[in-house]
C-alpha cells in the first residue's frame, strides 16, 4: 500500500478531482510512480488541467521552462515537493 505524506494525500486528491479520474482512488496513487504515460497514463491536456488546479489551490504557476519541468511531473512525490517549495518561497 502506498505511504503518502499528508500533503501528498492532498495533492493526490487534487489530481483525481481536477482530472475526473473516476476509477482511480487518491490514496492508491503510489508516491514514486510515474504520473504520465506509464503509471496513471496522463497526457499534455492533463498536465495543463493539473497546472490550472495547482495555481488555483496553491498560487503556484507551473512553467515549461522550469529547468526541471519533467521532474516536477515525474511523480506525486516530486510534484508535491515542488508545490511545497514554491508555495513557501512566495
Amino acid at each position: 500500500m502506498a505511504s503518502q505524506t499528508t500533503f501528498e494525500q492532498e495533492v493526490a486528491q487534487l489530481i483525481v478531482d481536477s482530472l475526473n479520474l473516476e476509477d482511480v482512488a487518491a490514496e492508491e496513487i503510489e508516491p514514486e510512480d510515474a504520473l504520465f504515460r506509464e503509471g496513471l497514463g496522463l497526457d499534455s491536456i492533463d498536465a495543463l488541467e493539473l497546472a490550472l488546479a495547482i495555481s488555483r489551490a496553491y498560487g503556484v504557476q507551473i512553467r515549461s521552462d522550469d529547468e526541471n519541468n519533467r521532474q516536477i511531473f515525474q511523480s506525486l512525490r516530486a510534484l508535491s515537493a515542488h508545490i511545497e517549495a514554491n508555495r513557501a518561497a512566495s
Partner: protein
Amino acid sequence: MTGTQDHPQDILPLLADTPAPLARIGERTVSRAAFLADVQALAARLPQARAAFNLCQDRYHFAVAFAAILLRRQINLLPPNRGRTTLAEIAGQYPDAPALVDGPDAEIAIPVLRVSACGEAGESAEPIPTIPSDQTAILAFSSGSTGTPTVHARSWGALHAVTHQALECFGLQDGAGPTLVGTVPPQHMYGLESTILYALLGHATLLSQRPFYPEDVRAALAACAPAVLVTTPFHLNACLRAGLEWPQPERILCATAPLDPETAGAAERVFGCRLDEIYGCTEAGAIATRRTTRESDWTTYPGVEIHAKDDGIVQVQGPQHPAAVPLPDHIEARDAHHFRMEGRLADQLNIAGKRASLADLNRRLNAIPGVLDGVFIPPEPSTDARGVTRLAALVVAPGRSEAEIQATLAECLDPLFLPRPLVHVDHLPRSATGKLPRQVLLDLLARHGECA
C-alpha cells in the same frame, strides 16, 4: 543578401524580403540572412532522398529544416503524431526519408538527423533562393474513414497563395512586424501556416519556443510585444481560467475548433485586443476567417470560393487548390464567399482541436491481436465546460490487459484519442444488423461506472 525582384510565375521566393527578423530565440533575434545561412548549412547535410520527416519541436529548428528540405527539392513529411506505427506506415512509402529531429526522439526506428541551428552560423550573402511553385512542399495526413491515412500534398505555390491571403486579412504584409507567439505545433496545418509561413513570407517574426502553460504564454507575450497570439480554443480557455494579468497582444488568432462567442468576447476583454478565428482543415488548409464577437458567418479568404453540391457536401476552391476540395464539416453556404459551420460530419471527431475519424479509430482498435470486438464512444459535445472530454471504449478481449491495449493504441494514435475509460465487456450489444446504438453503449458504460 540582395532583394527579390518580381519572379516569373513558375518560381517563388523562399523568404519575404522584409526587415522583420525571421525568428526570436529567447532574448535574441535572428535576421533573415542568418536564417538563410543555417538553412544552407543544413541543406548541405541532407542525404539524397525524395522526402524527409520534419519532427523538430522547436519552431526555429522546424523552420530551418522546412526550408532546407525545400531547398534540396525534397518533401516535408508532417505526420499527424509520433507513434511508432504511424511513422512506420509513412516510412513504408518513403523508405529513404530521414527524420529531422531536435528532441529526445530516441525510439524512432528511422535514421535521424539532428537539427541544432540557432542563428549563429553567420549571415548568408547570397540572394534569397527561389523554389519552383509546382514543387511539393509538404505532405500532411488525415485519418479517413476508409482506414489508410489520406495524404494531402501542398505545392510551394499553394502555400504561398494561402499565406498571402492570410497576410492580407490579418495586416501582416507591413506594419509593426509582430512576433508570432504560437501554442500550436508547427507540424499541424494551422501551426505551419500561422507560425512558420507568416514569418517566412510576411512581415512577422516567429518565436522559437512553444509556450504551453498559461504562465508560459503570459511570459512570452510580455517578452515579445508587439505580439500576435496564435492559439486554439483549448489553450485560450485555459488562459482565461488561469486568472492572470495579461500583457496586451496586437491580435489573437484562434483555430482548430469553433470558438463560442462568449469565450471570444471574454478573450477580447481580458487580452484587450481583437480576436479573429480561422476556419481550415488538413484537406484544404485555411480558407476563411471571422471576427467571432461580431459575426457568426465565415468569410472566405480573398480569391477563395465555396459551392454546395447536391449531396449536401460543400466544396472549396482557391488559387491554392488544383481541384475543388470537399470540406469535412456540415456547412451551410450563404453565397460563394460566406458560410455558416453547423457541425462536423458524423464520422469526424475533434478532441482539444485535434481531428480524427471515428471509423479509423475503430479499425485500429479492432486490428489489435486479441481484440475480438471493440468500439470507441465519442463524448457528449462539451457537457463539461471545465476541461476536455475524452473518448471511451468498450472491448471484448479476454486475453489482453487494458495496459497492453493502450500501449498498442499509443503507437498509432495521438495521446488525446486514447480511450478513458477502456472497459472490458463479454460482448458488445450489437443489434440484429450489427449496429451499436449509441444509447445502448452509453448505458453499458454507465453500468461499468457503478460497478467500479
